């Protein structure tokens, strides 16, 4: 069966719009849409730039707030320098550290406890191994530098020395 769509022009030419004007209309529409697309794309870029600017401003104000809280620690350290060595100075330094720790805690910073536990690369970085007869393989023997967590995230891994059990044979036996 032939569909009428195959020769509509031949059967009823006067009912069809003029192909030239049809083309012109289609082209005009395409041009409009292209222009709209260009504006829309540019707008995406502009929204992105605005979002970036807002993010930068927030970051800056966050830095300002946080850094402001650190200044009293520096003040206290500088005050400490005015004194002679001695017990009082030690006490002052301890109090300064305490204040600093409280500040960190108020910012959700917590200390990682790693010594004596099995080494975990999620929270610690091994800087050396040491043979040990009284510890299991891979137990953290010593902390060279403390690690910290910020909320649930790792802020800084602890730097640790890990136990290596003294064994006669090389370790390709497999677990």
């Amino acid at each position, binding site marked *: 069966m032939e569909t009428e769509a195959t020769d509509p022009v031949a059967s009823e030419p006067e009912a069809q719009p003029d192909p030239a004007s049809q083309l012109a209309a289609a082209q005009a529409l395409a041009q409009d849409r*292209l*222009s709209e697309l*260009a504006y829309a794309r*540019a707008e995406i870029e502009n929204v*992105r730039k605005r979002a970036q600017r807002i993010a930068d401003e927030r970051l800056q104000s966050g830095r300002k707030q946080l850094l402001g809280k650190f200044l009293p620690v520096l003040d206290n350290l500088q005050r400490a320098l005015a004194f002679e060595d001695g017990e009082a100075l030690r006490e002052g330094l301890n109090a300064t550290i305490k204040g600093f720790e409280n500040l960190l805690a108020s910012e959700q910073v917590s200390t990682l406890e790693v010594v004596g536990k099995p080494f975990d690369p999620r929270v610690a970085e091994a800087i*050396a191994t040491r043979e040990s007869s009284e510890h299991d393989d891979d137990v953290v023997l010593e902390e*060279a530098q403390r690690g910290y967590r910020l909320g649930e995230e790792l802020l800084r891994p602890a730097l640790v020395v890990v136990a290596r059990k003294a064994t006669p044979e090389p370790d390709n036996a*497999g677990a």
Partner: protein
Amino acid sequence: MAKVVGIDLGTTNSVVAVMEGQTPTVIANSEGSRTTPSVVAFTKTGERLVGQLAKRQAVTNPDRTIKSIKRHMGTDFKVKIDGKDYTPQEISAMVLQKLVNDASTYLGDRVTKAVITVPAYFNDAQRQATKDAGRIAGLDVLRIINEPTAAALAYGLDKKGNETILVWDLGGGTFDVSILEVGDGVFEVKSTNGDTHLGGDDYDERLVEWIVAEFRKDQGIDLSGDKQALQRLTEAAEKAKIELSTLTQTTINLPFITMDPSGTPKHLDLTIARAEFERLVSNLTDRMVGPFKAALADAKIDLNQIDEIVMVGGSTRMPLVQDLVKKLTGKEQLNQSVNPDEVVAIGAAIQAGVLAGEVRDVVLLDVTPLSLGLETLGGVFTKLIERNTTIPTKKSQVFTTAEDGQTSVDISIFQGEREMARDNKSLGQFRLEGIPAAPRGIPQVEVTFNIDANGIVNVSAKDLGTGKEQTITITASTNLSKDEVDRMVRDAEASASEDARKKEEAEIRNHASSLIYSTEKSLKEIGDKLDAAAKADVEGALAELQTLSANGTAAEIKAGTEKLEQASYKLAEALYQKTGAAAGPGPSTNGATHDEASAQEHTAPSADDVIDAEFKETK
């Protein structure tokens, strides 16, 4: 549509990037870092670690930690773990999988397609192995492209005509120099050379050696056997190296680095100048010259044929590397604005975007180099389109009149960053006439700035009351050279505080004028309802402010304005006491605020567009 990512699978570090709209974006991994160490480890408990975690445990697990597997790609090298052999492509697949998983999480969509980069000198077996690694990681590798080509793509050099490009890539552990030719968007590697064991890590090591030697000289203590101290030294050395890229000298400060035999703490505090650092590493730097000359000879080109130079790898941030390249090539301009650690992945992402059909040349997006706006009351420059806005763009704002019975407004269009219109570049002006006479603040004139994709600016002003409209087309805005634009931006920065003062002064005068107007109006309407003393107070303050407005300083006008405002408050109180709080329609109790509120109400189609600007008087 599924995203295609671009991956720089590096010897020491890998990076993944993706096109977001028209912008390539580097994706941070699950640990929040934009680069991922190309390290894989098998723990004794059978767990597989990739990236930073694998690196952290390398010291305790050296036999089961695999680094730099890229050096073995395309060979029959095997890694034996728990009796099972792993090929380099299997190990690389683990790195790819980590990158792709983290990218999938970021994009919220499973990534299955990628473009991966390889060094230009990789042979067919090495390229095939890289492709296999992708396949093992479950990826459809749409294309393997050369690292220098990716870097050139990141700078859009494919859009240039026939050019010769030098790509200088100094990474953490390898140095590659390549010469490319581009024509019709197609890149050809003419030659490549390098040193597979030269990189930023060598520079750090030199600095550590120097610190150890200096400390030994000063304190007589050798730190080289102290692993704990060395760890801190390595970190400090890398930091110092980075600082010396921007500073001419830096200090290395490590308190309590060790103890002397008596238990007294020892501190390390050294200062190093950039020149000294450069002397320490000069023979490392010299090692780049030979490969460069060889590459040039292999490509059979002269120095003067090099059109573009692209810097890749974090170590090219060191001025000594940039100086060397400039000295060797005699060229001052280096392409180094894209983060050199990420430029290869970014180029790969652009290629991926092209293959995914996301990057098209249909619409080339440009930005306006300077802000555009018009002059408002007091000569203030009111910006409608901020600089660096991507075009095409269209912005409208509704303004009002400054005078009673004003029937026309002058639209003066300016371009620039200064606060006062006259300090900017004038682009043209026109007048919209036939506004029905009305009190100031009532007519609404919508001004629209439209910059089309060709940078042509159309400004129209429409009286929303009558629908009358006037338009001007400006093409001059595109004629500014980059130097002119830079100069205008610099000028604006230099005069920022002076300009802010002028703008504030203009605003003080505008505010005073508006207050005088509304007070006069209120007095006329309700003056007879006031008691004589309050009225005299207001009239006195009014007369004073009128005089000050004509010939006072900004500070005097501000004080006068405040005085009149205070008097008006009393006027308002008096009025309320007389008429009761539920005052009938009409009389404004405080002319100034009422007027401003109504002006905003009228002039603002939406809250975002609220503007306190009025056109200056035209007649």
